[in-house]
Structure formats: structure tokens, C-alpha cells
């Protein structure tokens, strides 16, 4: 199952809720303001860093770039994908849940 999160974890509990319900083997894609959740060295880093491994975490490259967030600032293990990668993730998983 693919989960998308589009909210900053500094503003919303969406990412936390998603992590609480996502099962191992799931994919999570951070999009829009959700990409702030991918940053290393923040008060929310541990939450996501602990999940990576059992869950594959991706961040949408165009949204990172738009916000001035280079890949070297991200939590290790988070993969950056484009819109084409977003489409591939949506198709590779049997369903998509958007944590709006």
C-alpha cells in the first residue's frame, strides 16, 4: 500500500497518524509540504528514521527543490523520486491512501 503525506509534521499530525497505521512493507511518499518531514536533524526526524527499513520512504524531488531542500539534508535511506516515480509507486502498490 502506498501512503502519501502532504503536510509538514511541524504543523500537522498526518505523518504521525500515517506511521501509526502503515504496515511493514508499505511505501510512504512525502509530497508538497510533507517533504519537510524528510529533513534530518529536526524534532521529528527520529519518528520517520525509526520507520525507514520496515517501510520505504520516498520524497517528491520537485517539491524538495521548490522548497530549497537539497538531498544531503534528508534522513539517510529516504529516496527521492519525480512525478514519474510517483506514478510508478502508485501502480506498484495495490492501493493508495492520501493522508490529507
Amino acid at each position: 500500500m502506498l501512503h502519501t503525506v502532504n503536510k509538514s509534521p511541524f504543523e500537522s499530525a498526518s505523518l504521525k497518524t500515517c506511521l501509526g497505521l502503515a504496515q511493514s512493507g508499505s511505501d510512504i511518499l512525502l509530497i508538497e509540504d510533507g517533504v519537510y518531514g524528510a529533513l534530518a536533524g529536526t524534532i521529528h526526524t527520529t519518528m520517520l528514521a525509526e520507520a525507514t527499513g520496515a517501510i520505504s520512504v520516498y520524497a517528491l524531488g520537485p517539491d524538495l527543490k521548490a522548497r530549497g531542500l537539497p538531498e544531503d539534508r534528508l534522513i539517510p535511506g529516504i529516496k527521492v523520486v519525480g512525478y514519474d516515480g510517483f506514478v510508478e509507486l502508485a501502480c506498484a502498490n495495490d492501493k493508495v491512501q492520501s493522508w490529507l
Partner: protein
Amino acid sequence: MSETKKFMYINRRPPYGTVYPLEGLEVVLIGAAFEQEVCMAFISDGVFQLKQGQDTTDTGMKNFSPTYRALGDYEVTRLYVERESLEERGLTEADLMPLTWEDEDDDWAEKPSIQIVSRTQLSDLLEEQDVVFNF
């Protein structure tokens, strides 16, 4: 459309502050006519949608909470409420509207629609679905 899919409508927002819960409910009611396998989940602030005693008189808004009572008539009989979300908000099942449905296969016995489930149970239920809406 012969295919039957499992639909879950996830409600994560409180009522009245935004229109999402009300318009979400409209989707559930229309969707009921399509004879898919339907359930609803209430998590995070979505549990406040089921709070007893809603009275919108002084806000000038429409009180749509009675609509939840009609869900049983539309054969929407499984409303999963996440226990952790209730507890985090200082609520118990007694704070929620008593919602029931009549079981045609059991001499129209009245049965509770609300099922309190743990986060783990809800996670399993989510995994079972084919289509997930989020309001």
C-alpha cells in the same frame, strides 16, 4: 458494474470547522447505492464527528449529526472508531451517539454500528480495502 470492491471512508477531521465531514458523508450516502462493501473509520479528530449532543443553533450552521443515524438504513453498518484517538481526546464510547442498524438476516435485530477498535486492528482493516477515501 458487477465487480464488488471494499471501500473505506476515513474521517479524520472534526465537524463544522470545515465542510469535509459533511461533504464526506454525502459521498458515503451516494456510494451506498452502488452495492460495494462499505465501512467508515473515525480516527484522530474525526472521532469528534460522532460526539453526542451536537447543537449548531447558535452558529447558524446546519447540524448534520442526525445523518449518522440514517447510515444504517443505507446499509452502512460498520463504523470503526479508533480507541487510541478516543483516549487521547479524553472521550469514551459513552460520549458517542448510539448508532444502530437493523439486521435483516437476524429478524431485524437492532445492532450497534459503532465498533471501537485498536490502532493495530484498524491498520489491518485498512490493509484489506480496495479503495480508500479520506475526508
